[in-house]
């Protein structure tokens, strides 16, 4: 296996996808590096699975990191009440401001379920439904449904239907 060739071929795409998935470019870079390190240590059996394998591992690494971070925040919040303002209910104008800062699409993506977000973003990178299914842990036949559900939610938030879309 030519690890350098795989890195050149997939690294940029993987980082972009993971950054879109997590909203955190640094985390995306770290997860992508770790995914390539794991590829080097224990590659999948079939070469044609490498791209999907990298994206699956990268996705899991991002979710793990997010979960750890979330757990730490919860633990700290229980020990130090009020440590995070984010734990308090947000006012509508806070939400609006947050969306403005992060970007409306980013904010809307953050509200999707993990599988919906992964599926939609992997599709944007040109993955097949079969590859998406392997990465998010579902059947190929369900990917269309997951995508449709995600689009239904986004359509409301981002005005994806009609001429005034966006």
């Amino acid at each position: 296996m030519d690890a350098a060739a795989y890195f050149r071929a997939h690294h940029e795409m993987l980082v972009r996808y993971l950054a879109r998935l997590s909203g955190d470019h640094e985390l995306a870079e770290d997860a992508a590096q770790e995914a390539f390190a794991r590829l080097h240590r224990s590659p999948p059996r079939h070469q044609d699975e490498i791209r999907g394998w990298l994206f699956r591992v990268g996705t899991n690494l991002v979710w793990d990191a997010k979960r750890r971070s979330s757990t730490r925040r919860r633990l700290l919040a229980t020990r130090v009440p009020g440590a995070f303002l984010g734990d308090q209910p947000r006012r509508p104008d806070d939400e609006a401001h947050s969306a403005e800062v992060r970007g409306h699409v980013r904010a809307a993506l953050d509200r999707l379920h993990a599988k919906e977000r992964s599926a939609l973003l992997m599709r944007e990178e040109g993955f097949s439904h079969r590859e998406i299914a392997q990465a998010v842990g579902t059947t190929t036949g369900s990917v269309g449904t997951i995508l449709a559900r995600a689009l239904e939610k986004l359509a409301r938030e981002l005005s994806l239907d009609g001429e005034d879309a966006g």
Partner: protein
Amino acid sequence: MTHIDDGQLIALIDGALPGEDTRIAEVHLDRCAVCRAARDRLAGRLERFGALLRAEEGRVESKRRWAFTHDRRAVLAAGIALTIAVATTAPVRAWLVDGWSEPKTGTVPDPVSESVSTLRFPSERSLVVSFGQRQASGHLTIESTSGGMIEWISTDSTVELVLVDGRLEVENNHGTRGDYALRVPASHVDLAVFVEGTEVWSSSTGALASARIPVGHR
């Protein structure tokens, strides 16, 4: 008539339906305006979502670059302001301005001698030159106008001496600190000390047992 659900329509758009299912779906679409509208609506959503995502990323990246550039400018401006502020404080100014100018004023600063006027060049005498507390690097000239030998007795090998036409040039190339003794025979009654080309002491202006000469504060 049973319509095609959105999941299958997306699979059809993406070419992910198995061959037979694709054929059945296309036959249905030919006859069903509702499903055609649904397919077009979903295709439009997919296209617009991708376009919005890329457009927003472009804007965010552009903002990030703008912020990065302005951050750098802000850091640069703060650095300049801090440098000016520090440079204009009295001790630093003294170090920068007075420190530099001391050797050029023609005076012997910070004398360590208890006597500057009573010494009359005995048969052998010493001039102590200190390079001060700072790492000094510079050029000291001891000039004898009456000729004869001048013997350098410092044991410090880092100080280079060159005797040229009666001029003893001391170059402290290594920034060595310490005191150095210069033994001058009695015949050398006319002696001058130059630092950086400026006469800072002369036997005609007063005897000097020893002096601390900041050689080349630069």
